[in-house]
């Protein structure tokens, strides 16, 4: 198969499909309830679990040291939820976004965010019908673990390389967002390999579809997070 040609054809056609099916809708990154086969549901839950347990332990230590942290952490969780439900203007129209999670990871470290992320995802499923219970593990891994860990890692790395703080925050937030999208595509491709091209083709397909919203969104996220971070720091 001519890979280059494949790429040139696939992306625009998927863009067309995307627009046709009204896929500009927000929350494209939440895999909906019942969308993953049981084996993959269990697999991603098992993958997320150790991160969750570690995060929970570190949270337990934080609140044991200072009981007021319990309320502050709960506020951070609620903040992430509310922020993600506000629409931001994006090139492809209005979109929701996980800004709060990236910001939280940079400010509070990624491991606590995995616990807060689990709670936020649970509420998004129960209160807003975004995501689901059987897909909680998969969504947690992409949005509450992979994204925040990459955000935090990149931020620390860039900061350690003496990059300007704004640049570090931007890269952390934007790349964290991109990783979330890549992981979601991977989860879907693994569960639904292409009948003609297998996993690789499916991965390409899902990446192509979500690129429409996610790539511009990642840039928006990065800019927004920098603006918020700078304002908060200036106090």
């Amino acid at each position: 198969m001519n890979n280059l040609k494949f790429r040139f054809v696939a992306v625009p056609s998927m863009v067309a499909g995307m627009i046709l099916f009204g896929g500009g809708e927000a929350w494209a990154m939440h895999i909906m309830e019942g969308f993953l086969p049981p084996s993959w549901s269990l697999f991603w839950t098992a993958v997320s679990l150790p991160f969750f347990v570690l995060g929970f332990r570190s949270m337990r230590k934080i609140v044991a040291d200072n009981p007021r942290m319990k309320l502050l952490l709960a506020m951070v969780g609620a903040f992430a939820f509310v922020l993600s439900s506000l629409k931001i203007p994006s090139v492809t129209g209005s979109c929701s976004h996980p800004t709060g999670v990236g910001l939280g990871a940079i400010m509070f470290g990624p491991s606590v965010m995995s616990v807060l992320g689990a709670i936020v995802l649970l509420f998004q499923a129960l209160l807003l019908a975004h995501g689901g219970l059987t897909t909680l593990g998969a969504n947690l891994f992409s949005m509450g673990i992979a994204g925040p860990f990459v955000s935090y890692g990149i931020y620390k790395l860039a900061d350690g390389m003496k990059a300007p703080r704004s640049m570090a925050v931007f890269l952390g937030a934007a790349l964290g967002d991109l990783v979330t999208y890549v992981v979601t595509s991977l989860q879907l491709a693994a569960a639904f390999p292409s009948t003609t091209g297998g996993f690789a083709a499916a991965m390409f397909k899902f990446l192509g579809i979500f690129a429409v919203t996610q790539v511009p969104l990642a840039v928006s996220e990065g800019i927004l997070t920098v603006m918020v971070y700078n304002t908060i720091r200036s106090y």
Partner: protein
Amino acid sequence: MRTLDHYAASSRLRDVAPGYKLLYALPPIAMVLWVDSVPFSLLVFGLMSASVVMKGGVRPGDYLRWLLLPAAFLMTGTAAVAFDISVHQESFLFSIPVGSAFIGVTSAGLAMAIHLAFKAMASVSCLYFIAFTTPVADLGRSMSALGVPGLFIEMTLLIYRFVFLLFETASEMATAQRSRLGYAGTAVSFRSLALLASNLFFFSARRAEEVYVAMECRGYDGSIRVLAPSSGERQPSFAGLVLLELVLLGLAVATHFGRFF
């Protein structure tokens, strides 16, 4: 923010003990996913939807509107599963040529997509049964019966309260910004949203401290202990519920091994 919580609080099934509602709606999700059959998915979808509308008292129009919510994901997701690209036209049921390749639907892809769409909608109806009838606070209480650690439940319930608190403030802020033309263009919107987010962050931190002080005044010592309202929980027939699940399971097993449908 229009949330499902609004329906749960006024549901006619609200008073049924939450454990029973979970027992009613959770096993069918597992069965639907395992059986992977369109008729069985339809059966569960019908059962759950009827329960939400007829027993729970949700207006059919409202229920439909909520069903459409995950539709965008469902559309793109299933379409992505159904469509494939190949240079071999013969593997497709139908296809359109794009350059030297073809985009089309294979019979296997189509079957997978159709199964997927029905499974997803059936599972969503089960999730909706819980969300439409059970307030989060009730779920929190049943989580502790399932042995979920106390700290996790405390955090869940605090976040639940704070989500609505912050949302109220965030929408007040957004309204005030809009009245001063804060969202009149893309660049301006960005700036407004960044200001809103940072302001909301400070508000959260301040409010967390205030709540902490108020809790301290009532003797908070680091662990949150509360009493659940005692009366008013209805407990339907446990045997009936188990019987229903067994019938569903029987149908599921039979369907899976090809005796029915």
